[in-house]
């Protein structure tokens, strides 16, 4: 379970263009549940997702994962936490250029003490489940936006993380891919994973066990 209290992020703290992107966010996300964050563009969803995924250091506040305060972690321990526990799906997809689909899926394995070749079949299965069986060896540049995001979803899951964070995963995605990804996230709940999604797509928001509404960096309420 993920709990965060008074989570705040201020960019350019103390400088001329200081921006308070997230203010005093309090969130509880249970295991085996999908928690969705909705709100207009610029309301702080991505900043909040990044903080929850340990990609961004909060200015204030705490994040507890199963009771343990991970905001106090050093840079090295944060890397370990990300490696062992988090799978992130980015709004901008962020695949590695000049690599093909299956190579991109297997990148997270390089940080582990494993033989990546042993996981190739699993990577191909993931791509197959996401409807990309025939495009597993296509270069990233040869895939559509939706296909690329599906590869990114597979990448986030190759290491079987407990926490999956998806920041606006359907922004650059076609309808067919959006449906596939939405269905896939639904299955993650059944696997007992903690899923955090920020979105403004209603079909994805409908998956939520809990929804937080955000505006101007603040959480207005939840349902």
């Amino acid at each position, binding site marked *: 379970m993920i709990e965060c209290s008074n989570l705040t992020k201020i960019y350019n703290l103390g400088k001329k263009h200081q921006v308070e992107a997230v203010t005093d966010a309090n969130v509880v996300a249970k295991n085996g549940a999908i928690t969705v964050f909705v709100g207009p563009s610029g309301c702080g969803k991505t900043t909040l997702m990044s903080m929850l995924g340990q*990609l961004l250091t909060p200015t204030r506040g705490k994040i507890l994962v199963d009771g343990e305060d991970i905001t106090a972690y050093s*840079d090295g321990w944060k890397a370990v936490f990300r*490696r062992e526990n988090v799978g992130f799906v980015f709004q901008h997809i962020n695949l590695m250029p000049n690599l093909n689909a299956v190579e991109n899926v297997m990148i997270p394995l*390089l940080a582990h003490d494993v033989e990546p070749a042993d996981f190739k079949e699993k990577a191909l299965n993931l791509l197959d489940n996401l409807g990309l069986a025939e495009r597993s060896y296509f270069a990233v540049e040869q895939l559509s936006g939706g296909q690329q995001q599906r590869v990114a979803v597979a990448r986030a899951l190759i290491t079987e993380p407990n926490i999956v964070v998806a920041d606006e995963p359907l922004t650059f995605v076609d309808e067919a891919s959006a449906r596939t990804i939405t269905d896939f996230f639904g299955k993650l709940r059944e696997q007992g994973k903690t899923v955090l999604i920020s979105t403004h797509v209603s079909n994805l928001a409908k998956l939520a066990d809990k929804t937080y509404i955000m505006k101007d960096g603040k959480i207005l309420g939840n349902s």
Partner: protein
Amino acid sequence: MKGRLKNLLNYSVNCILRYKVRTIVILVCLSVAATIFSSVAFMKDGLARDGQLSLKYAPDLTVQGIVAGRQAFIETSNIGIIRGIGGVNDVVPRIWGYGNVGNNLLVILGIDLRVTTINPAEPYPLESGVFLNPQRNNTVVIGKAVADLLDARVGSILTILSESNQARQYDVIGVFNSESSIYNADMILMNINDARSFFKVPDDKVTDLSVHVTPTDPGNYVPLLDYVAREISGRPNVRVLTKDVLLKAQETTYGARSGFFSVVWYIILIAVALIAFNQTVVVGHESKFEVGLLKALGFSTSDIIKVRLMESAILGILAGSIGLTFGIVYDVVLNAPVLRDFMLGWAVLYPTFTVPVYISVQTVLLAYAITIVPILFATVIPSWLNATVDPDIAMRGARA
């Protein structure tokens, strides 16, 4: 190799292959720099080592005459006096000078075979023929380059025009081999009396004296040398050259010439560094994004640094090895065309000269330092700076 480190190594090599243009540019630039550096350094080291080798057997002291601050003939009356100095084993007079064949400068050297401790049975470095005989006059042993220039061989008759406009004929009885060319390629070696006649040197003078000393105790060599040198220096119109002085002169000469190439090489290295840095900046945004993404996917800061370190090391070692290999091929296989002529002198004759080349460990390590260090700075430091920020900020910054 441990799994994780092996994975990081694979990723590093993958990066090298992915950024093809950057890799090729860096490899080419650094290889060129390493080639130029190593080809000059190997030759300079070879000449230096050969110089030291020569000095091993060279006279301990060379005594020259000096008049009005310039070298002049030395009086033979000095021979007996110097022989009387304690510790002096042998004093060998020499008459030598320069002669021309067309525009080619030759060294004509006459040695006194009656007084030198030379054993005819010793292994003289001859390609053909025999060494000089004190009983035979008007005979010469010539260097390989002289033989090639004049198309002379054992049995040929050499006619040389002296400064006094007299033509003299000499029988070629021997030709030095290629291996010894470094010190005798352009030489015509003859009996001292023949040289005296050729150069019209007065009977009571010679060009210089080779002095050999023999210490009773090897530890006393330097003090003995100092003592003998001081004793001789006290004589009027003489100057004494020790082995150190001669070696220093040689090193100064070759150092000055290789120094010319060093200037050229520094310019190239600066250009290389600029190009490499430029390439790194060009891929800088991609690199920044990549670092941010890798951290987001679970790589730690030390993983990122290891990746970049291995990438730099592989590129640097590859570039250094390519450059060194080309340098070795240029010097050893091709005999350093152009560079050889510059280092050894253009206006003298060295047509088929095997340049002494010494591939020293120090030069090799220095070449690798040249290729690895700039790349390390250009890649590891920026990566480390990117790796110490939050992954989200690194990726956003790169996307901006």
